[in-house]
């Protein structure tokens, strides 16, 4: 395949996909629309159904409900190879009794492509993943990262419409992981192929994906670009899973323009002009990222009103350009606030009793409790 050829990427659409194993629900009514050429990460804790969902899209599992469309056509009755689904397994699944070259050419041999065409494409793929020098080696002679590249070449050799990767970096060590993420991203961009990656590592998802689908217990919590997930989490789970968040239970009162949040014992009070996604008065959970908060020693603001969350400084950790404060509230729960070093205000010490406040304009969230 000529890399400069225009490649028509396909969209993927899931409608109400559900899958039951006996009594338990692994995937619960997932609706998802993936744009052509997009790299989407399926992110979530183990057991959330992300691998099941990937296998359903691949055609390895017959889902119990809902439908999958690739490029507009329903593919539920098609096996993986007819859907154009290229799968890279977690353990790479390279055929141990075949050389790298034979592995990469396997799909083409199975489809009875002409011998010289197979040779040409295999060479092309090996060059794409930079494994040309290893063509005559056996999988057992290769390192983890090398095996993964061969697995990728093998899958891409049959020109799938979709690329599906199941926890591709789980078995690699940290440094290699970064390199391979960049590598796969590069290849994906170059080929313009619609890609779905399953991962439990949010850093990985955040750095690689165009959009991330966060899953929890079979349910799709939010499907957005990484920054949106971070700044505007749609659910409490996303707020807590993606990045760190300080979570406080309490009550919301007031109206747009002037909301007031008080915690349960009533010792904390926050004033804020905007509240979302939940803006109704009533019990809520307040969620703020460490860098959205500030620490001050005065309870009373300039405007005369009291505002703040009383905390005690437990630890002060310098981390690069920031200072990380580990704090404890009156009820014993912990909080974390990050401030840039050298910002105005005194440097706090362990044992100081101070107040945490929301920085003006910071995107904090409220979720109905």
């Amino acid at each position, binding site marked *: 395949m000529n890399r400069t050829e225009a490649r028509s990427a396909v969209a993927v*659409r899931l*409608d*109400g996909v559900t899958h039951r194993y006996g009594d338990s629900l692994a995937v619960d009514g*997932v*609706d*998802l*629309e993936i744009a052509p050429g997009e790299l989407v990460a399926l992110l979530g804790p183990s057991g959330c159904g992300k691998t099941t969902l990937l296998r*359903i899209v691949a*055609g*390895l*599992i*017959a*889902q119990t*409900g*809902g*439908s*999958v*469309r690739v490029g507009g056509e*329903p593919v*539920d*009755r*098609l*096996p*993986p190879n007819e859907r154009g689904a290229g799968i890279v397994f977690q353990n790479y699944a390279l055929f141990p009794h075949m050389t790298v070259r034979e592995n990469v050419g396997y799909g083409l041999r199975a489809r009875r492509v002409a011998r010289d065409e197979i040779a040409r494409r295999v060479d092309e793929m090996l060059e794409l993943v930079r494994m040309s020098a290893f063509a005559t080696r056996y999988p057992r002679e290769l390192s983890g990262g090398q095996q993964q590249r061969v697995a990728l070449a093998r899958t891409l050799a049959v020109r799938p419409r979709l690329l599906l990767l199941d926890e591709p970096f789980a078995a690699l060590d940290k440094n290699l992981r970064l390199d391979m993420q960049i590598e796969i991203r590069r290849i994906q961009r170059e080929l313009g192929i619609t890609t779905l990656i399953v991962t439990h590592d949010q850093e990985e998802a955040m750095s690689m994906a165009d959009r991330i689908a966060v899953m929890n217990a079979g*349910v*799709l*919590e*939010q*499907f*957005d670009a990484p920054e*949106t997930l971070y700044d505007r989490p*749609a659910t409490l789970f996303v707020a807590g899973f993606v990045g760190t968040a300080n979570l406080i239970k309490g009550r919301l009162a007031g109206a747009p323009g002037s909301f007031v949040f008080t915690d349960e014992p009533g010792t904390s009070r926050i004033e804020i002009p905007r509240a979302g996604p939940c803006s109704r008065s009533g019990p809520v959970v307040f969620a703020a990222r460490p860098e959205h908060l500030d620490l001050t020693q005065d309870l009373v603001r300039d405007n005369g009103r009291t505002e703040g969350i009383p905390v005690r400084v437990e630890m002060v950790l310098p981390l690069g350009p920031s200072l990380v404060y580990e704090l404890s509230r009156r009820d014993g729960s912990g909080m974390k606030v990050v401030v840039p070093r050298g910002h105005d205000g005194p440097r706090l010490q362990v044992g100081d009793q101070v107040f945490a406040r929301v920085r003006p304009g910071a995107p904090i969230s409220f979720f109905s409790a």
Partner: protein
Amino acid sequence: MSTAQVATLPVPPQLPARGLRLEAPVSLALPLAIFFVAFVLVPFMLLAFVSLHEDNGLKTMGFAQYIKFFGDSFNLSVLGDTLLLGLKVTLLTILIGYPLAYLYVNAPARWQTLLMLLILLPLLTSSVVRTFAWVVILGRQGIINTLLLDLGWVDAPLKLLYTPGAVTVALAQIELPLMVLPLITSLMNVDPNLRQASLSLGAGHWRTFMQVTVPLSVPGLLAGSLLVFASAVSAFVTQTLVGGGQQIFMPFYMYQQAIQANEYPFAAAIAMVLLLCVLVIVTVINAIGRRSKGFVHA
């Protein structure tokens, strides 16, 4: 763009999805199944059928053969001797085989291949050859007698062959690999950390062996016992060549009644009794095995 809500397009009618089936078609098992039904199942049913007749012509049905078998003390002694032989051989193989299995498991890898081949060789060698070896060893001019005579411990060669002890010992040696192999498998599945933990807690080597290693190797002991018992009880060649005419066990009895005496219904009854005994014991041992699996795999 961002939420997980239902799209505005109508949900298409649900086609049942197909998935990927990896299993080979069931029909592949058909040829062997048909063969077994025709040439194993049917013959055994025929055996049972014939055993329920009173004469070779198969004219009258009845339990006469079984009554004849269980009514005669000679027959019962043959059955008893056979089952006892199985028991003795099993116990002896456990005694001799365990240390060998233990040695294998603790040996360095290079030695393990050699040991395994040494254990396998007797298994693959003809049973007639192995029995013959015992005839050579135990005969009047065999190595044991020669040794005893040379040492002056006896004046005349002992009659070692054709004794019950000889059959037991010979069978134990011949069936030894059948006990050792499952034991090795079982011992290799035992977590080596358990032994280390026991030793570091202060239990000596003997206590660790008796209270940790042996109980955890019970599945292997049971599997081996099953194989050894079933083989020992059916070991026609060894029983006859080493046991001689003096001792009769069920296999020879069956052969004699069928081929030499031409009493097919009675021979069939003997075969059925032997079969049922082995089946019962195999079932019992399997049942014990299933119970013990619970505690072995924590």
